């Protein structure tokens, strides 16, 4: 009886992402691959919302960070903070990703536009098979109070 129930569990798996709006930092540490954890530790920003999805070889989703303190911050300053957090973890700047979908920016009061920052990381080069690729596209609200990240990991 339990084996058919597992198959029901497989069917019950929807194609929508799972959304988390409470304990997002803790959930993020569980759900996200380790290279993405720097996003959970950007100074002065706390994770506010996480929408995560996966298939058998990849995982992707959106993470929203909100500014902890009052006041605004210029986009360039926020961008610099993110790069400072990412660089020690061996992330590098890159161009636009075609396979990381833009989230619904209007939901966060932003117009659809090119990302403010795109980061990439590869792991497992030299091993048999293609390396695992990590990617982030980042949009920063004009007042710096929100950061929206679309991320993706592909382990082929």
């Amino acid at each position, binding site marked *: 009886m339990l084996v058919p129930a597992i198959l029901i569990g497989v069917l019950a798996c929807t194609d929508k992402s799972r959304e988390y709006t409470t304990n997002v930092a803790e959930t993020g540490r569980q759900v996200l691959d380790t290279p993405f954890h720097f996003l959970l530790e950007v100074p002065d920003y706390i994770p506010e919302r996480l929408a*995560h999805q996966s298939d058998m070889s990849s995982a992707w989703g959106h993470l929203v960070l909100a500014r902890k303190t009052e006041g605004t911050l210029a986009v360039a300053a926020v961008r610099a903070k993110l790069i400072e957090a990412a660089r020690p973890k061996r992330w590098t700047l890159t161009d636009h990703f075609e396979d990381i979908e833009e989230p619904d920016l209007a939901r966060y009061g932003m117009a659809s536009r090119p990302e403010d920052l795109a980061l990439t990381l590869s792991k497992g080069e030299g091993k048999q098979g293609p390396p695992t690729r990590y990617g982030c596209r980042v949009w920063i609200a004009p007042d710096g109070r929100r950061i929206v990240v679309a991320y993706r990991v592909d382990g082929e």
Partner: protein
Amino acid sequence: MGNPVSKKAKAKKVVGGKKGKQVLTNRKSGRQGPLGLKPNPPAQDGRQGQIEMEPPPPPQLQEIFKGQYLDHARDVSYLMQGKSGGQSAKKWFDDTLKGSKVERLLKEKGVRDIPKPTTVQSFLGGTFLRMYLDGKVDPDAVEEAGEEIKASDTFKDLTAKVTKAVQAAEDKSSKTTLEAADVERVTKEHLTTLREKKGIAFRAGLNPVIGGVSKVDVKGVTALGTEDTPTGTVAMYRINVNFFDTYDFENERSGEYDRYRKNLAALLIANRFSDFWNAYQDEMLPIDSWHKTKLDNAAIFASYMYALEKKGWTPGPLSWDVTVPMDILVIQKRAKAKK
């Protein structure tokens, strides 16, 4: 039908046991570790976290476990095809609704936002999983994959990029027209560089089938002739692009997903079949209180397959390749001096 472990195997439970020997428990007894397992005692040399081997069951019993677990994987592969069919139907519905009077009316009334159309996983996802379980490339499946690849946005984008590269070579060339060998060389160089620098990947619905391509090659170019147009003479070429991939469950990952799948693999390798099945089933069943992780079912099933592969119960990585014809048009913009 419960746990595919037989009653005989379930009864084989050591209670108490010698000092340091791991006791086989079910999930309801004993102290629970983070994945519902009894934590291991430290090994004699002080190393933590290693799962102690159980003696292997008799070969016939092991074959029963193997058969049951592989049958389950096969069942899931058919479910994947069923899901793909459902997604196709939903996409058809969403596409039909899009831009329609009904959609406008619903929006005006504020009844609901029309959901973003579903990504349809390729129908071949299940077929390819079975191909992997059989350890044998299915030419029909590969041919269908080629057709899906050809229809994909990624392939259209590659075609545009190759056209641009070949056009640039044509513009620079002093030959009257590029030969097929020239087009082959330019295309191969361009695609190889693209794959090495940025990767070539078929995402969305094709991700479970091919995903990232491990190698790309060109298997011949045919010059299809030329045609005079107002903008110049257009030369047509058919380029046979060969994509290579390996279907397996071994990849570099991290975090909770990696910990979970390695633990599943360790349990299976240690012949702790009951613990293995419980650790899998508890995460897969739609009973939230049983879940020790936040992994979704696709990740859990991929972990299950990883464990079977590590145990050596699948035929292992399956390499395959497909040739997809790419048609390009190149403008010979000006008359060139003959060599």
